């Protein structure tokens, strides 16, 4: 286990370096933000002056070198828009996005796993058709559309939920469902196909031959096995989830990293973009690492 962990951590280093390089290059090509920083009336001289003060006139490799050196120390530069350390601004937003993502994941899991099992055990019935149908539909609707609909119907017209913002539990419901729907759809489909495969396994027949109840067959013997690949998918979905959060946060005025990022990209506040992308990438990697470990714990066949 220790060796495995160390190995995995060592593998992270080149991944992170390549990642920062890609992001930094993009940011570099994107050009500097100075034009955006100044009012419409600013002159070319103003632009040049600010450029120099921000060190934006250095050549690429020098800028990247400086960036990397600082990044190692957790310093991703100053956000020109907020005049503040970029990473601290991103970290400030992390809890909101984390809350949203976690709620969506919980929602998706609570929906997807029972639904997937249900439809797998009732294969080719109406219920199965309905569940697979809705899961395809869940994937087929752009989530901002879903979100706006939810707001119109469930928040404005019927006032069951707050319209937007972050605060109470009720605030997180609509955004979490909006964001979680696509993930739930994907997970339902996956759980179903895994369950179908597992239900055809010999050991399920063995269990049935022992005379144990359907519940034990389904939830103990089959589910545990079906869960193993689902864990991996859940981890892979974190990336999708964060991507979806960018849109969902916008719709629900949810003050998370997603909104911050969209604004930072639009304003070319690249220190923030870099810090946020870096943080998200690390999170995604770490979550996948956890999933890997969990995978190993769930499946006794894998040895370290």
């Amino acid at each position: 286990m220790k060796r495995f962990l160390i190995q995995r951590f060592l593998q992270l280093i080149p991944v992170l370096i390549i990642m920062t390089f890609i992001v930094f290059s993009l940011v570099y090509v994107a050009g500097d933000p100075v034009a955006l920083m100044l009012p419409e009336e600013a002159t070319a001289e103003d632009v040049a002056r600010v450029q120099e003060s921000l060190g934006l006139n250095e050549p690429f490799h020098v800028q990247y070198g400086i960036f990397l050196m600082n990044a190692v120390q957790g310093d991703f530069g100053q956000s020109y828009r907020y005049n503040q350390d970029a990473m601290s601004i991103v970290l400030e937003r992390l809890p909101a996005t984390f809350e949203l993502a976690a709620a969506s994941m919980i929602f998706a899991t609570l929906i997807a796993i029972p639904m997937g099992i249900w439809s797998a055990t009732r294969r080719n019935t109406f219920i199965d058709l309905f569940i697979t149908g809705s899961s395809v539909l869940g994937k087929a609707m752009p989530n901002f559309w879903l979100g706006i609909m939810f707001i119109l119907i469930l928040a404005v017209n019927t006032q069951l939920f707050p319209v937007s913002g972050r605060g109470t539990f009720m605030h997180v419901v609509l955004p979490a469902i909006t964001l979680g729907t696509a993930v739930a759809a994907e997970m339902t489909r996956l759980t179903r196909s895994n369950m179908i495969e597992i239900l055809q396994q010999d050991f399920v027949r063995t269990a049935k031959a022992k005379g144990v109840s359907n519940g034990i067959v389904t939830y103990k013997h089959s589910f545990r096995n079906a869960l193993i690949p689902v864990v991996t998918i859940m981890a892979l979905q974190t990336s999708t989830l964060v991507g979806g959060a960018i849109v969902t946060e916008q719709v629900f005025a949810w003050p998370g990293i997603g909104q911050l990022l969209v604004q930072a990209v639009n304003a070319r506040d690249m220190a923030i973009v870099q810090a946020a992308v870096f943080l998200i990438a690390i999170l995604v990697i770490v979550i996948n690492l956890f999933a890997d470990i969990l995978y190993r714990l769930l499946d006794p066949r894998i040895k370290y």
Partner: protein
Amino acid sequence: MSQQVTPEPVPEPQGPAAPDSMKKHQKKSSFVRWMKLLLKSKTGTVGFLIVMVVFIVGIFSDQIAPFGVNEQNYANMLVPPAWQEGGSSEHFLGTDNLGRDILSRIIYGTTISLLVGIFSVVVAGILGMAAGLFAGYYGGWIDTVTMRMVDAFLSIPNILFILVILTVLNPGIMTLIFAIGVTNWVIYARLIRGEVLSVKEREYVKAARSIGTKNLTIIRRHVLPNVFSTFIVISTLSVATTIILEASLSFLGMGVQPPDVSWGYMLADGRDYLATNWWLATFPGLAITITVLGIIFLGDWLRDVLDPRSQGR
């Protein structure tokens, strides 16, 4: 051992070896066989029909659309669909805030949504295939670097990546295709590399190498046929994902830009009217949903017939 229902013979991925004289005959019979297979699956048939209709509309949009894509009419702004009070039969699905015919715009949007969907998958496929073949075949540090790159790409949510790329290149159809393509290549790279690695170890490939068969030939004969079916399935489903992705990018203001029009753009543009003039966003939204539904049905069916292991799943 037990009495299993014998599945319909599964069409093998077409080997490249069929002599030319045989091909014509084979083609016909395989077409019939495919159609039979298709008709067996209800969802597959529905998916196929939807995709065909969408394609036809996309290809002949110029001929089908009753109005020009940007034909404005201030006297006819926000006309509801024909069946609603105040609707006009001239504009079946109503008009938008500049008096443009929504049906026509959806028809034109079909072309662009499909263009973006398909070509970004083509770009991703070509890039991914090249990278996967290269990495898998040459191994060593090339492989290591490629795979670490794949990991790096996978660690960044793709919409974020595309957003940053589009900031650099002004959003538009070509840049969208490019941005989505260079972001999604990793899926294909992983697939192809895995297959190359396993094929490389097989005896017949070793044998082929030992008698001096060219690498390219080996790849063409042994690797590509093996990944073909997975490749097709993933690509099909990717087109669906891309259409949704384009809509999300439009929502963030980074999708297809006017005067071009895509479904995603219409949906994003019309979303402010959902509460008051619902038809602006609802119809393009339905177009997206139905098309994506059709593609997923088709893709699932393709997976079922191409990959016998997933029968009925």
